[in-house]
Structure formats: structure tokens, C-alpha cells
């Protein structure tokens, strides 16, 4: 009966594997395994080495990324399912460095609480592994597996404060919304596979853009895929999980989710749009346009009313996702500058948002709260943190000469360059929203500088060394990116269309 199982087919050809191209993933995998082995052998005695091993692993992963960048050649494996080009390398570097900063801001938070430390770093590394895999994935199955690999550890990490009901709520909401989104995404992918008969994005694009008008099933497939990723990047109306999850999760995990996880969602979305759907701009552009416009506006308006700084950063993150989506809505008109704009925004956003969360963690070490009112008079007892926070908030608002202005400038540049109605409308949306956003960022600034400290308690905040180095790194990067915008500009001059041929 199972004759078919044993039937002979043609000879098997071993796929050629470019080990250099896969080296970043393999290095990180090796360190993840090493971390797990250490946990297995030493159990709790390995605790104090876990953060160090994780950071060494992340920094070691930078080595092959740098050698690949120096080499400069685009590499492609498995018929184009796994691609290493400049864009992939930049995003890998962003994920690794963001992960490194998350390790820096986690080490004291996690070791001082009653947390499972070895497992924490193990899951963090596996999530980052999923992200760097995502940067190279140009194939539906690889993208889906990478997405699950980066999400599933994140669900667990969100609920890491097991005894805290809020953290349980955070993990549960994130998990339920996340798997729901994954299911929709996978259904969309299966429809696209059914319509095109291929999982390779390049071939998918060729197949679905062959006819003048898209077939209904392709439209449904594209909609489902975009909805799936819209959950991941927390774009309105799929953002509802974000504030509760961000508030309840351990703050370093929140930083990780709001930066690395969101960036990974964008990378996946960009891979799909620029390689897989680029010929079907009549389907995805109106949808991205609506998502971008609504996300900016709703995110900013709700952020105005927040009294908790983490929730405020969550809604501000929703708005920032709207800004980053804006160039993608004109992806077919000005593909190269749209991609470059979103990539540079991701790079700069990663730095400034991680910095803001580092300050939140530092302040919470003393106040044990994240209420905005507890930031009153911060300048009087923690001037360094106040200056850093002000820099991050103004950078997020987009005020020159800090990093954020250049990011917003690129976004504006791309949507205006498109010279279409939707591009100009989005430009107006970005401009108006930047003004709204300035209000709530500045409000915190005013509270920190001008108000008196509550209860006149002026004991300084003790900032541990690792947190301090994370702050120094992010402050420096925020300023450098703002003063020398050419730096990001040169690096992010990327193109995803080389593989498609036009």
C-alpha cells in the first residue's frame, strides 16, 4: 500500500552551500547551543556567566557580518531563497547590535529579580537568530519559519515575571494575538502559493504580476499577508496587544519587542513587498497607505492621554510604525529611496527607542514605577539621566540636530519624491503628526526639568555599569546620526530589486 513511499525518483543533488554567507546564523546558533549546554552542565552555577556569554556570542556574530560586508559580493543560495546582500547585512547588524544593547540593559534587571537567567538569554539569542535569518529570507517558508522563530521566544519572554499578573496578561495577549496573526499570514501565503505554485518571492512576483488585473485569490493572499505583518509591527487597527504587552512585560523585554521585533516585522514586510509583490502595487499600496495614515494619527492621539511612560512609548511606537510604513505606500514609484528611507528610519529608531527604555529602566530602579508623574524633578537628583532622556525624546520627536530628524527627513523625501497624490497626502500626515507628537514628548521633558521632585526625595539613582554603557552607546549614536546624517545615508543606500531584474 505504501508503495509510493519507496518509489525511486531521480538522483539527489546536494545543494551547494556557501558557508561564509550562512556564517552569522551558524555562529549565533553555536553560541545559543553553548549557552544551553552551560545551563545543562552547571545549572544555577552558570548564572553569572550567562549575560557575558550572550554578549560574546552577539559580538562574535558581528565578525562574519563585517567580513561579508567587506567582501561586498551579493550571495544567493537555494535558487534565491537565502540572500546575503547589503540590505540583509545592515538589518542583521541592527538586530545584533540591538540585541547586544538589550543584553546590557537586561543583565542587572534579570539577575536582581527572581528570574530564570540562563533560559532568558537562551531565548533572547534564539529570537535574534530568527531575526537575522529573516533578513536573508526571500522565500515564503523561510520567512514563516523565521517569523515563528523570532516570535515564540518573545511570547515566553513577555511573561517572564511569572508571579506578576500583569506580566501573565502581557504574555497571554501577545501570544494569542501573535498566533492569530501567524494563522492569517500563513493562510495568505498558502493562497499565494496556490495561485503561483512557487514559494520563491522572485518567482511569485513574476507569476502574480503577469496579468493586468490580479485574480481574486491573489488579492486575498496579499491582504492576509499584510494583515499578518501589520500585527507584528503593531500598526492600527492591529495594535491592540501592544500597550498591555509593553506595560506588563519585563522592561528590557519591552525594549526588545518595541525595537528588534518590530524591525523584524518590517524586514519581513519589506522582503514581501519589494521582492514578492512589487508588480502588484495596485493591491498593496492603497492598503499600506491606509495603515500608515491611520497608525500615525491614532497612535499619536492616544499617546497624548497616557499617564504611564511605557504605555506612552507603546503608542508612540504605533505612530512610528506609521511613519515607517509611509514610504512603503509609494514603493513602486520610487523603490530605492522608499526602501532606503524605511531602513534608515529603522536604524535610527532602534537607537533612540532602546535609549529611552534604558532610561526608563534606570529610573525605575529608584522609583519602582513607570508613571510619568514620577519623572517630576528628575533633573534635581539624576541630571545625567534627564539629559539622556531629553535627547531621546527630542530625537523621537524629530528635532534637529538629533538622529530622529534625519530619519523623518528621509521619509518625507521619499513620499514627496514619488510625486503622487497619495505620497503628498502621506507627507502632510507625517508633518501634522510630528507636531502632535512633539507635545507629549515635550511634556515629559518639562516635567523632568521644571517640576519639583515628589516628596523632595533627592537620593540619586544608582546606575549599574552595563546600563550606563548602554546609555552612553545610544546617546552617542543618536547624536552622531543627527550630526553626520551622511553616515546613515551612505550605509542605507540599498536596493532590493537587484534580484528581480528591474
Amino acid at each position, binding site marked *: 500500500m505504501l508503495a*509510493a513511499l519507496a518509489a*525511486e525518483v531521480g538522483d539527489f543533488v546536494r545543494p551547494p552551500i556557501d558557508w561564509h554567507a550562512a556564517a552569522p546564523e551558524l555562529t549565533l546558533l553555536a553560541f545559543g547551543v553553548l549557552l544551553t549546554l552551560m545551563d545543562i552542565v552547571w545549572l544555577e552555577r552558570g548564572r553569572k556567566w550567562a549575560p557575558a556569554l550572550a554578549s560574546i556570542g552577539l559580538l562574535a556574530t558581528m565578525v562574519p557580518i563585517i567580513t561579508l560586508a567587506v567582501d561586498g559580493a551579493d550571495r544567493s543560495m537555494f535558487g534565491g531563497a537565502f540572500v546575503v546582500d547589503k540590505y540583509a547585512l545592515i538589518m542583521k547588524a541592527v538586530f545584533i547590535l540591538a540585541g547586544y544593547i538589550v543584553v546590557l540593559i537586561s543583565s542587572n534587571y534579570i539577575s536582581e529579580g527572581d528570574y530564570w537567567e540562563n533560559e532568558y538569554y537562551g531565548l533572547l539569542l534564539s529570537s535574534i*537568530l530568527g531575526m537575522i535569518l529573516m533578513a536573508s529570507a526571500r522565500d515564503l517558508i523561510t520567512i514563516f*519559519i523565521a517569523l515563528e522563530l523570532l516570535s*515564540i521566544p518573545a511570547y515566553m519572554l513577555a511573561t517572564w515575571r511569572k508571579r506578576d499578573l500583569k506580566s501573565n496578561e502581557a504574555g497571554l495577549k501577545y501570544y494569542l494575538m501573535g498566533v492569530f496573526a501567524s494563522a492569517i499570514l500563513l493562510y495568505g501565503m498558502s493562497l499565494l502559493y496556490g495561485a503561483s505554485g512557487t514559494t520563491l518571492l522572485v518567482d511569485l512576483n513574476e507569476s502574480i504580476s503577469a496579468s493586468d488585473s490580479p485574480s481574486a485569490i491573489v488579492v486575498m493572499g496579499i491582504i492576509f499577508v499584510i494583515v499578518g505583518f501589520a500585527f507584528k509591527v503593531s500598526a492600527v487597527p492591529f495594535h491592540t496587544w501592544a500597550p498591555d504587552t509593553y506595560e506588563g512585560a519585563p522592561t528590557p523585554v519591552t525594549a526588545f519587542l518595541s525595537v528588534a521585533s518590530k524591525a523584524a516585522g518590517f524586514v519581513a514586510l519589506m522582503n514581501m513587498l519589494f521582492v514578492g509583490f512589487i508588480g502588484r502595487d495596485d493591491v498593496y499600496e492603497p492598503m499600506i497607505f491606509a495603515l500608515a495614515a491611520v497608525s500615525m494619527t491614532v497612535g499619536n492621539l492616544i499617546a497624548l492621554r497616557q499617564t504611564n511612560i511605557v504605555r506612552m512609548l507603546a503608542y508612540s511606537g504605533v505612530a512610528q510604525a506609521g511613519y515607517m510604513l509611509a514610504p512603503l505606500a509609494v514603493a513602486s514609484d520610487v523603490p530605492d529611496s522608499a526602501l532606503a528611507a524605511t531602513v534608515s528610519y529603522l536604524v535610527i529608531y532602534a537607537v533612540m527607542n532602546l535609549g529611552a527604555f534604558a532610561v526608563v529602566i534606570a529610573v525605575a530602579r529608584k522609583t519602582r514605577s513607570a508613571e510619568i508623574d514620577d519623572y517630576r524633578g528628575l533633573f534635581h537628583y539624576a541630571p545625567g539621566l534627564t539629559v539622556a532622556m531629553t535627547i531621546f525624546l527630542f530625537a523621537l520627536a524629530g528635532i534637529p540636530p538629533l538622529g530622529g530628524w534625519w530619519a523623518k527627513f528621509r521619509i518625507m523625501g521619499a513620499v514627496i519624491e514619488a510625486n503622487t497624490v497619495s505620497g503628498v497626502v502621506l507627507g502632510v500626515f507625517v508633518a501634522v503628526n510630528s507636531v502632535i507628537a512633539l507635545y507629549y514628548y515635550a511634556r515629559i521633558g518639562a516635567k523632568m526639568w521644571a517640576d519639583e521632585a515628589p516628596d523632595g526625595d533627592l537620593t540619586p539613582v544608582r546606575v549599574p555599569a552595563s546600563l550606563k554603557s548602554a546609555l552612553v552607546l545610544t546617546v552617542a549614536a543618536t547624536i552622531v546620526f543627527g550630526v553626520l546624517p551622511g553616515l546613515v545615508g551612505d550605509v542605507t543606500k540599498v536596493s532590493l530589486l537587484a534580484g528581480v531584474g528591474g
Partner: protein
Amino acid sequence: MIGLLAAASADMDLYVAQNIFFGIIAAQMIYAAFRVVTTANVVHAALWLVLVLSGVAVQFILLGAEFVAITQVLVYIGAVVVLFLFGVMLTRASMGADESVASEKRSMATVVGVLLFTVMAVSLIDSFEDTRLVIDEPQSTTLVSDSIFSQYIVPFEAVSVLLLAALIGAIVVARRD
């Protein structure tokens, strides 16, 4: 010539037979799927789900995809339903009938379900119309295997990391201390 005609009519017979079996199993699946969402008893719902999933497995066999059918039985009926029942056993809620679960927001769910069904049905019919897929040979497992070990080798290895991370995370979250 006559031989060719005979072969064609034999193909046609097979095609008709496949469609009849498809219809029978589809009807059984639809009935079972309705019971999954309408029964007030969670354990019954899980058992009806087994019936739906085995229907899917049989459909795969009809399409000549043996490996997928076996995977369906092994992973879905074997593992997923086991997890499902474990989940039910672990909760504090009673295992018996629970009206509140079934009745809340039923009308809303019905509207969404019917709407989605209509949209999907229309777009699937519109896209494929009367395309006839000819399956000459059952798909062999070696084909699946070859694609795993060539084109999809990276996601294949990533799956092991995914499973490991999920297991370790779940152990940490689920253990008592």
C-alpha cells in the same frame, strides 16, 4: 485508438469516483466542524475536531498526498489534540457542559464567519473556475524529502531551534517554582 478511449474513460471513472468520495467526506467534515463550535462540552468539541482532522487526512489521500496525510494524523490528531485535551484537563473549569462559552457573542461570530466564507468561496471559484488538476501519480515521500534536504534545508534546521526554544520556554513558564 480504442485503447486510448478506454484509458480516457477509465480516467474519467476514477475522476468521478474521487469526486464522490470527496463529497461524502466533505459532508462529514462540515457536520463535525459545526458540532465543534456548537457543542457546549469542550471535550466533545475536541473529539469532533478529531473527526474533522481525520477527514482532512482522507482528503489528502484522495489527492495522492500520502505523506501529508500521515503528517496530518501524526501531528494534528496525535499531538495537537493531545495538547488540547491536556489544556482542558489543566484548567480549573468543569469539564462538562458550559453554556456561557457557547452562547456569548454568537451572532457576531456567525456574521464574521459567513462573511469570510462568502468572500473566500467567491474568490476561490473566481480564480480557479473549472480548472482540472490531473494527478497522474501519487506524490512520493522522496519528493518531499528531496525538497526538504535541498531547497528548504535552512528552515528545516531552524525548526529544530524553534522547537527547542518553545520547549525550554514552556518548561520555564509552566513549572511551579
